[in-house]
């Protein structure tokens, strides 16, 4: 009889705690989630860019989701240099063919994968980009070659709307 009573009480305690935890969680979640990117931020998620005026060997920088995106029209030498690299020499192995759908155009998020600085164009030991903050060197395909950055510069989702317009996002 008494043992049965204790079991019932334990069950009630456990059930009360469980309901309490769910309740507290339900209250905390909105308070945490309000800090995530809001609807107005998400609404600005894509940008269209006219690239007709970009000469070979030149790059432009556009703002997408508050971040700079590099659009580089590469020269044939730069393409050749990027494609000649052996995969074994790369910290984050990735073929140039996979990074630039159209070899002439390299579209990538211009943010160093170390701590988020903007690398400088045509600088560094690999003729690509160099991050002045903590010294990461990127090649002509935006791949990390030397320095603390762990990965290659990110390729965003993009498409050619027509031969002059690139839509990022």
């Amino acid at each position: 009889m008494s043992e049965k009573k204790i079991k019932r009480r334990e069950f009630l305690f456990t059930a009360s705690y469980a309901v309490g935890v769910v309740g507290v969680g339900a209250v905390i979640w909105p308070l945490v989630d309000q800090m995530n990117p809001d609807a107005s931020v998400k609404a600005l998620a894509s940008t269209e860019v006219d690239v007709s005026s970009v000469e070979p060997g030149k790059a432009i920088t556009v703002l997408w989701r508050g971040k700079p995106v590099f659009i580089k029209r590469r020269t044939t030498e730069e393409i050749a240099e990027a494609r000649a690299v052996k995969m074994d020499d790369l910290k984050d192995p990735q073929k140039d063919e996979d990074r630039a759908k159209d070899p002439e155009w390299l579209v990538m998020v211009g943010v160093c994968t170390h701590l988020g600085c903007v690398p400088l164009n045509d600088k560094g030991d690999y003729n690509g980009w160099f991050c002045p903050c903590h010294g990461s060197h990127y090649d002509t395909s935006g791949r990390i070659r030397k320095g603390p950055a762990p990965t290659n510069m990110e390729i965003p989702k993009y498409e050619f709307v027509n031969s002059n317009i690139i839509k990022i996002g």
Partner: protein
Amino acid sequence: MSDHEYVPKSKFGKWFNDRLPLLTLGNHLADYPTPKNLNYWWTFGGILTFCLITQIVTGLTLAMHYIAHADLAFESVEHIMRDVNYGWLIRYIHSNGSSMFFLAVYIHIFRSLFYGSYKSPREIIWIIGIIIYLLMMAAAFMGYVLPWGQMSFWGATVITNLFSAIPFIGEGIVQWLWGGYSVDNPTLTRFFTLHYLIPFLILGLVVLHIWALHIPGNNNPVGIDIKKPSKDTVPFHPYIVIKDGFALLMFMIVFAFFVFYSPNILGHPDNYIEANPMVTPAHIVPEWYLLPFYAILRSIPDKLMGVVAMLSAILILAALPWLDKSKIRSAVFRPLYKQFYWILVADVIILGYVGAMPAEGLYLLVARVATAYYFIHFLIILPVLGFKEKTIPLPLSITEPVLEGPLSSSTIKKESLN
């Protein structure tokens, strides 16, 4: 803590104190028995309280004029500097005040390290202090973001990106911190909110810090337990109040020198350029008080491990009461520890220096050696010293070495103090 029950003199005082014993608390604070040999390194607790109050008062007044919006923040700070009555003064006190706050807190921490104030029975005081120090760094970092200059923006970008080093969930955490896909307006408004909140959290922790201090009482330069009250102690008021007051006055001269003669020397000119997400300044350097940790971050070639090392460098301090195995508190009686203490001080200063320099060549090598030594000090040297070190005999009381107590061994102890 006093040995008599306090009774207010006036009738109203007694009536009030029976209902809320504030006067008893005041009496406890005034009579609080304090070791009579406290030197000037012990005055920084009072100085730090002054720094906190100064930051809160100037911060509240600045918040009356500042606008936390990405388009308006930079201009509103210039508005404070040019248009608001005495705005330049209040802002310069606030911005230099953070440096003065850290200067004082570093002296306070290193005093604790030298005299072993973190040891039993004062571990909780020490750990609360470390939490206060962490909150100070968070407040200082977020405050630096508010003017929305180039250093503000890129400092915020680099520091928030530290969290992206966490495997799998890092990217999500960073976007959650930003409220977007980069540092932007949502980041600024939340940083302002937290910058406003943290000083009051610190204030609460300061009350706990002092409460925990008043249980065992102050450590002292000799580092021995003393009877309280006894001929080894003096009442807090007026003795310590006057001494703290004098030290505070000297400190305020240094403070005023920075505010009135070189208000921008501790800042970076780049922060007078408005934030631009397209261009990173050539040299990103944090404020001077964060440089040693920045050097540790950069000395590790791996992103995640760099972040782990930097956080460990701070958190290892919380474990200090258990890493230091020596029962003797004061370095005065620990000839070997005393030398390693000064090597550590030099090590931290070297880390601060290389943290301000570019992370390449010789600087990087020095940073790596200094980082390694920092951890060796806490993880190897301190535990080993606890077993191996031959310490100097302690006096039985603070008074004994001065008055030549009756004990036959006292002459030896006296020599050891000199």
